[in-house]
């Protein structure tokens, strides 16, 4: 037995996953210029990991929703910059900037917002179909 209402759960889970991704992008972009005095203290880019979850069992095992299984920190080394007059500079005269790649984050943001729009459209279409189904036999 299929149930179109389940589509709202599936698309809704995708919406929330994409918004986590957008949040991570916003956090990375906002901290792109944060400076630290040590390599360990530098901000590291955050990346959410998506995983699909099977909804239901047996006859209902047709749909997969999305969940964010975790948020990974990028392991790329922070960018060291020689700035001996900076107040945060270490004894060697270096400050450390985050390993955030702004261009990569922009591309990530566009991809996330496109996916978000796609799922909103799926929900809209499903809503229309359900409303029409409710009116079945009334005309």
């Amino acid at each position, binding site marked *: 037995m299929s149930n179109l209402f389940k589509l709202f759960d599936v698309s809704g889970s995708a919406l929330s996953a994409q918004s986590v991704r957008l949040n991570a992008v916003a956090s990375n972009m906002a901290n792109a210029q944060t400076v630290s005095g040590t390599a360990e203290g530098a901000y590291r880019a955050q990346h959410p990991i998506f995983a699909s979850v099977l909804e239901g069992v047996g006859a209902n095992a*047709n749909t*997969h929703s999305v969940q964010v299984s975790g948020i990974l920190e990028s392991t790329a080394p922070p960018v060291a910059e020689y700035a001996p007059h900076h107040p945060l500079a270490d004894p060697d005269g270096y400050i450390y900037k985050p390993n955030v790649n702004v261009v990569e984050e922009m591309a990530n943001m566009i991809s996330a917002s496109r996916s978000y729009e796609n799922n909103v459209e799926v929900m809209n279409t499903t809503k229309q179909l359900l409303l029409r189904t409710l009116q079945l036999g009334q005309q």
Partner: protein
Amino acid sequence: MSISFDKALGIHAEALQVRSQRLEVLASNLANADTPNYKARDIDFRAALGAAEQGGALKLLRTQNGHLPVNGSGGALQTQYRVPTQPSLDGNTVDPQLEHAAFSQNAVQYQASLDFLNARFRGLRTALKGE
């Protein structure tokens, strides 16, 4: 002669059921467009409708004459993996454009099935009123 609803509605009730299941599968594909290692799937509509007409995809086996036949729909439809046209590095085989096109097409076909059903109901009502 009596009016049988099963016969009056014809194939359209089952078609609507299969359409809504295909809608679910396609929406899952779109929802998982960015999930690593997710494989896009679809339903073979012709095969699924054929199975639905024979009373569900799963049937109970009758090995003795005393066994009662079980009617009704049940069992998940057989989904098949899509052959990717542009496989990506993360193992995901969803092509959002293709899925979107299939979803829109299926939504229109769902509405067509609804219209057919509506026409059948209208016919039944006219017959009952005898105007």
